[in-house]
């Protein structure tokens, strides 16, 4: 049999105490490449970010439009930012569920045995999922425009809103990534994620104005970060204005990432 290991295998080598920043970046990119290959092989992973924007945008607009805003045309500036946030946030639930499923597979044993940064197997899929959020956001905006939505904020406002929503999805995905690392099964992640997602998206200003809600609920809606994101998206898309809401939304999402990304890495490392 031919040589399997060249001579350099046996000679002493330089060992690195920890991965460098360059290592972390290239390992994360390699993991993202793996996730993209998987997406290409399993196109059903795109159902939630393609069907949902099409269906929900049309459905909510025609059902609630007349009742809430008087007409569907007047409702579009309210509902499009709402659906935009809702779809992207729903899409990021899948990040946690998929990670949990993935972690049960043998290949994760190898990832753990390799001298790679512990964050790479988590950050790679998160990076690849940006593609899913981008698709969801783009489709929702396109469907809105087809239905007659004319964003007052112009192209610049729409692009800024698009970036904000994709960033919000990426940030919130760290919450679900963390859930993925602590839950026992993918079903558990799904269950918990739904329990978080429904109150967050529905107890917000996504679909209806908040004035008719009871006072205590208004308080919750006010502090709900999703409300901030939606309000920020409305300000950007409808008025082209970088308001305080935009600042709060960016700050809130950054805070979520800063808290949950390290938590996720810590519980992932501990699982090993």
């Amino acid at each position, binding site marked *: 049999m031919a040589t399997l*290991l060249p001579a350099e*295998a046996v000679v002493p080598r330089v060992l690195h105490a920890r991965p460098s920043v360059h290592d972390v970046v290239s390992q994360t990119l390699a993991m993202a490449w793996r996730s993209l290959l998987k997406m290409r*092989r399993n196109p059903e992973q795109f159902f939630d970010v393609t069907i949902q924007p099409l269906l929900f945008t049309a459905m909510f607009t025609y059902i609630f439009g007349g009742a809430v805003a008087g007409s569907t045309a007047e409702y579009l500036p309210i509902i499009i930012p709402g659906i935009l946030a809702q779809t992207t946030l729903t899409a990021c639930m899948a990040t946690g569920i998929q990670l949990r499923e993935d972690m049960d*597979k043998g290949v994760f044993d*190898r990832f753990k045995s390799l001298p790679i940064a512990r964050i790479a197997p988590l950050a790679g899929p998160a990076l690849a999922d940006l593609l899913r959020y981008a698709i969801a956001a783009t489709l929702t905006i396109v469907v809105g425009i087809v239905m007659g939505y004319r964003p007052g904020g112009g192209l610049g406002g729409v692009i800024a809103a698009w970036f904000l929503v994709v960033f919000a999805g990426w940030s919130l995905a760290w919450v679900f990534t963390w859930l993925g690392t602590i839950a026992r099964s993918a079903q558990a992640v799904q269950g918990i994620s739904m329990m978080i997602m429904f109150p967050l998206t529905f107890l917000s200003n996504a679909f209806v104005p908040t004035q008719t809600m009871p006072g205590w609920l208004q308080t919750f809606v006010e502090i709900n970060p999703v409300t901030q994101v939606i309000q920020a998206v409305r300000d950007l898309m409808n008025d082209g204005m970088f308001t305080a809401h935009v600042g709060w939304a960016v700050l809130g999402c950054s805070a979520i990432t800063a808290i949950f990304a390290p938590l996720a890495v810590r519980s992932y490392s501990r699982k090993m």
Partner: protein
Amino acid sequence: MQNSDFAVEATGLVKTFGSTRAVDGIDLQIPRGRVFGVLGPNGAGKTTMLKMLATLIPIDGGRASILGVDVASRPHEVRQLVGVTGQYAAVDDNLTGRENLILFGRLLGLPRKRAAAIAEELLASFGLTEAATKLTREYSGGMRRRLDLAASLISRPPLIFLDEPTTGLDPRTRGQMWDTIRQLVRDGATVLLTTQYLDEADQLADRIAVIDRGKKVAEGTPDELKAGVGNSTLHLRLEDRARASEAAGLVARVLGREPALTPEAGGLSIALPDANRAADVLIALRQARINITTANVRQPTLDEVFLALTGAPTETQIKEVA
């Protein structure tokens, strides 16, 4: 760094799961450039021990170092020295064989071109070139195992852990895996191999530790272990299996030590201090009119070593009878 004479050094290694001590104070000293076999039945703690040494699970007690690098305090460095091939192939089902190897190469910091070149080399070495573009979920068990081992070699590790590398493989594929392991050692690597197959340890390992219920019950070269049981063993099969215990009592009186009843009905395995004593046993049986169907004297197999050390038959023996 890496100045130790030993590839693996462990003292008092402990792993507890709840109230069970899966690994219960194991000491190991594995010299470089050899195949070291860890032999034990299912659930003996072999895999758990390997996982601790490979930094996959935390060490609960004791110390371990790989080529002089402490496992608990410097895991990232240990991971640069060890290639791990698990019991179940740790490759990505959704990727092709080639993509798997490129992914692991990229993760190990190889530039794109170098990763692709090494992937091609390894695919060729392991006879997987034709299957390079197939998804690994469509691979056979043997192909997955080969790809898994190939993946462990990308970093050219000086120490390779093989956790039951041939469990579930057909005899031909198993033989190929053995050849591969021998080649790795010729190339200068140290191999730590766990197995529940005694012939595998006998064939490959220079030194064997026998593990049972989390404890090391014996260690030595295959020959030393066999010699510890007696220079030779007399195997008998009785015509009337019902008289097995009567025969055992008789043998105990003649030799002063209890024989082992082998799992096959009416079988006795008798360790002899000296091959000549076989005649004494046979004469005693003849006088007691206990008829035998077969008798042979030979060097003990590792199966018998295991039986003598742990007092329980191994999985393979039980399967052979059933």
